[in-house]
C-alpha cells in the first residue's frame, strides 16, 4: 500500500511531464494498433478463405481464361463434390475511386459452395431467376446505399460496355471475418452479352471453384485436376483457396513488410521518449534516493519505485491507447470503404499493444534503476541535479 502511494505520488509530481509522456504513449499505442490492423486487413481475404475449397485457374496467369468445357471434366474427378465458376469483372461504379470486387458467377451452384455467404432463400431464388440480377454484400450495400430492387450500372474495363444490374439480394457473413463487400451477378448474362459483342471470348471461365468431398483430399484432387489438363491449350494451376488468396498478398509483400517494420519503429521512438523521461526523473531525484538509502532502504526498494512509476505512466498510456484504438480503427475502416474486405481490431493486436507497453516501461526504467541502485550515498547527497 505504502509502495503504491509513493509510486503514484512520484508519478504525479511532474504533472506536465507525466502527462506529455502518457500522451506520447497513447499516440504510439494507437498507431501501432492501427498499423497492425491494416496488416491484418491485408490478410483478411486469405484468413476468410477456406482450405477445403480449391481454386483452379490458367497456369500462365490470371489474365488467361479456361474453357467452359472443363466444368464437366472436373466434376468427374474422384473427390470433387461440386464445381462452380466465376469471372473477375473489374467494372467501375460511377468513378474509379469506388473500388469493390465484382464477380460473374454461375448462379445455380456458386452460393452452395460458399455457405459463409448467407442469402435469404427467397432472395437467392429471385437472383437466379433474373438474368440481370445481382447479389451484394451487406457492407457494400450500406456504403453505396444499395437496396433490393435498385438498378446499378457498371462500366466494364475488361468486358467493354455499360452493364445494367438489378439488386436482387443482400448477403450477410456467417462469421465476422467473411468478406461482405462483394458484388455477384450471373455468369450467363456476361456470356450472352459477349456472344453478341465479342464472339471470340465466349464460354471462357476465369476460375473454377471446386468443393471437395473431404478437406484431407485437397492436395490429391489438385494434382489430379492439373494432370487432367496437362499439355492442353489451357493448362490449369489448382491450389486451395487460401493459397490462392495468399498468392495475392505475397505479391504486395514489400508493402506489408514495410508497414510491419514501421509499426515497431513507432514503439522504438516512444521508448526513447519514455527512457528520456525516466532518466530525467531519476537524475533530478538523486538526492532523494541517497537520502532513502541513508535511511536504510536498499537498492531493490529504489528499483521497485522507479519500475513502478514507469509502469504506471506506460500502463495509463496503454489503457487509453487501447481504448481509443477501437473507435479510430472503425473510422479508418469507414474511410477506406470497401477497399479492404474486413477492417477490425484483432484480440491479438490488443495483447501485442499491452506487451509493447510493458516493454517500453521495462526498457525505459532499466538504466535509471541501475544508476539509482548503484549511487553511493555521499555522491547522491552531493548531487545537485
Amino acid at each position: 500500500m505504502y509502495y503504491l502511494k509513493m509510486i503514484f505520488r512520484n508519478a504525479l509530481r511532474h504533472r506536465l511531464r507525466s502527462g506529455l509522456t502518457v500522451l506520447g504513449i497513447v499516440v504510439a499505442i494507437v498507431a501501432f494498433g492501427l498499423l497492425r490492423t491494416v496488416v491484418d486487413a491485408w490478410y483478411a481475404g486469405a484468413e476468410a478463405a477456406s482450405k477445403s475449397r480449391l481454386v483452379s485457374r490458367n497456369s500462365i496467369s490470371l489474365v488467361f481464361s479456361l474453357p467452359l468445357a472443363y466444368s464437366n471434366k472436373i466434376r468427374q474427378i474422384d473427390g470433387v463434390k461440386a464445381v462452380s465458376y466465376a469471372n473477375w469483372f473489374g467494372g467501375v461504379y460511377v468513378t474509379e475511386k469506388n473500388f469493390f470486387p465484382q464477380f460473374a458467377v454461375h448462379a445455380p451452384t456458386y452460393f452452395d459452395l460458399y455457405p459463409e455467404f448467407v442469402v435469404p432463400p427467397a432472395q437467392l431464388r429471385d437472383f437466379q431467376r433474373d438474368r440481370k440480377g445481382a447479389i451484394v454484400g451487406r457492407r457494400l450495400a450500406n456504403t453505396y446505399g444499395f437496396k433490393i430492387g435498385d438498378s446499378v450500372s457498371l462500366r466494364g474495363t475488361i468486358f467493354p460496355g455499360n452493364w445494367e444490374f438489378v439488386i436482387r439480394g443482400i448477403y450477410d457473413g456467417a462469421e465476422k471475418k467473411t468478406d461482405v463487400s462483394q458484388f455477384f451477378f450471373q455468369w450467363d448474362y456476361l456470356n450472352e452479352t459477349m456472344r453478341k459483342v465479342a464472339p471470340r471470348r465466349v464460354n471462357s471461365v476465369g476460375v473454377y471453384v471446386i468443393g471437395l468431398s473431404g478437406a484431407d483430399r485437397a492436395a490429391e484432387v489438385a494434382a489430379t485436376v492439373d494432370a487432367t489438363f496437362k499439355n492442353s491449350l489451357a493448362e490449369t494451376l489448382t491450389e486451395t483457396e487460401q493459397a490462392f488468396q495468399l498468392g495475392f498478398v505475397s505479391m504486395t509483400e514489400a508493402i506489408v513488410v514495410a508497414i510491419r517494420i514501421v509499426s515497431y519503429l513507432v514503439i522504438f521512438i516512444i521508448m526513447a521518449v519514455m527512457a528520456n523521461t525516466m532518466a530525467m526523473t531519476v537524475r533530478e531525484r538523486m538526492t532523494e534516493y541517497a537520502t532513502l538509502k541513508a535511511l536504510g532502504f536498499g537498492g531493490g526498494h529504489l528499483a521497485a519505485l522507479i519500475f513502478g512509476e514507469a509502469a504506471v505512466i506506460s500502463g495509463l498510456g496503454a489503457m487509453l491507447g487501447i481504448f481509443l484504438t477501437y473507435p479510430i480503427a472503425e473510422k479508418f475502416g469507414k474511410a477506406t470503404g470497401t477497399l479492404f474486405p474486413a477492417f477490425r481490431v484483432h484480440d491479438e493486436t490488443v495483447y501485442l499493444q499491452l506487451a509493447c507497453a510493458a516493454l517500453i516501461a521495462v526498457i525505459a526504467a532499466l538504466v535509471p534503476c541501475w544508476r539509482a541502485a548503484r549511487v553511493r550515498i555521499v555522491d547522491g547527497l552531493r548531487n545537485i541535479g
Partner: protein
Amino acid sequence: MKIPYSYTFRNLWARKWTTLLTVGGMALVVFVFSTVLMLEEGLRKTMVDTGSYDNVVVIRRSAQTEVQSIVDRTQAALLESQPAIALGGDGARMISKETVVLVNLNKRDSGRPTNVMVRGVGAGAVALRPQVKIIEGRMFRPGASEIVAGRSAADRFTGAGIGEMLRFGQREWRVVGVFDAGKSGFDSEIWGDAEQLMQAFRRPVYSAVVAKLSDTARFDEFKKDVESDPRLTVEAKRETVFYADQSEVLANFIKYLGLTLSIIFSIGAVIGAMITMYASVASRTAEIGTLRALGFRRRSVLAAFLLEAALLGMTGGVIGLFFASFMQLFTISTMNWQSFSELAFSFTLTPAIALKTVAFALFMGVVGGFLPAIRAANLKIVDALRAV
C-alpha cells in the same frame, strides 16, 4: 544584447544522454519521413521515365491498362495510317503494335510466384524507346522463340536470366539478352516478338499501339482523329500520362500512408522535444534568473531556448537524413495494383526532399521548444533567483 551561441551548444552537451535520446527519437521520425518521400519520388521517376512525351499510346476505350485492352489487326492498320505519326529513316511509320500479357514467374529469393509483364513488340519498339539498350547478349530474332529480359526482371525472376529458359504458352523461350531501360518500368518486363507471342497465347489481337508523333503539338489532332473514327473503339493518351495514370493508386497509397505516419510520428517526437526542453528550463531556473539579472532581455532568453530546440531538431534531421540516404541502395519490388504486375523501383533522394526533411525536423524542434521557451522567458527574476 544576445546570449552567446556557445551557451546553447554547451547546454546541449552538458545533458548528453537526454540530448542523445531526444535526437535519436527525432532522427527515427525524420528517417521514416524522408524514406517515404524517397519512395514516392522513386515510383514517380520510374513511371515518368517510362513514357516519352512525343509518344502516344492507343488502347481500347475504357480499358485502363494494356493487359485489359484489345486492339485488333484492322484497327491497328488504321492507326498506322494516321498522318500525324512520324516517319522513320526507312520511310516506314514509327509505330509498334504490341501485345501485352501477364505470366506467372517465381521470384528468385522467395520462390513465390508473381505476375510479370511480357510484351510482344514489333520491329519499331526500340526506336520508340531510346532509353532501352541491350547490355548483355543480343536482341531477340523476329520469328524465333527468343526473348529478352529487362535488367531487374532478369535479376529477380527464376528463369529470366541470360541463357536460361522460360516455359509458357506451350513453348520454351530462350532468354538471349538483357536490356537496360534506364530505371524505367520496362526494366521489370520481358520482351519478345509480338507475332510469336500472339501465336503461343492463341490471342490473335494486339493490346496496344504505341506511336511517335511527327510533331508533339499534333497530339490533339491525332487524338481527335482516332477517337472520332467510327471504325476505331480506342482512346489515345500521351505515353507519359498513360504511365503516370498506371501508378496513380500505388503513388497515392504511399503518399497517404506516409503522410499519416509522419504526422503520428512527429507528435511523438514533438512531445519528446517538449519534455526535454521543459526539463532543461526547470533545471536552469536559477541560471535564467542570473542571466536576466545580468541584463539579458526576455527576448534573448526566448531566442536562446528556441535556438536550443531548433538545434535538437536540426541534429536529429541531419542524422536521420544521413541514414535515409543509404536507402538509395535498396530497390523495392511490389505489385502495381492497376497494371496487376510486378514493378521495381528504388528510393530516390533529391535536393528538394533533403530540404523538406531538414525543414520538417527544424519545425518539430521549434514546435516542441516553443512553450518551454515561453515559460523560460516569462520567469520573474526574483523567483527564478530564489529557485535551487
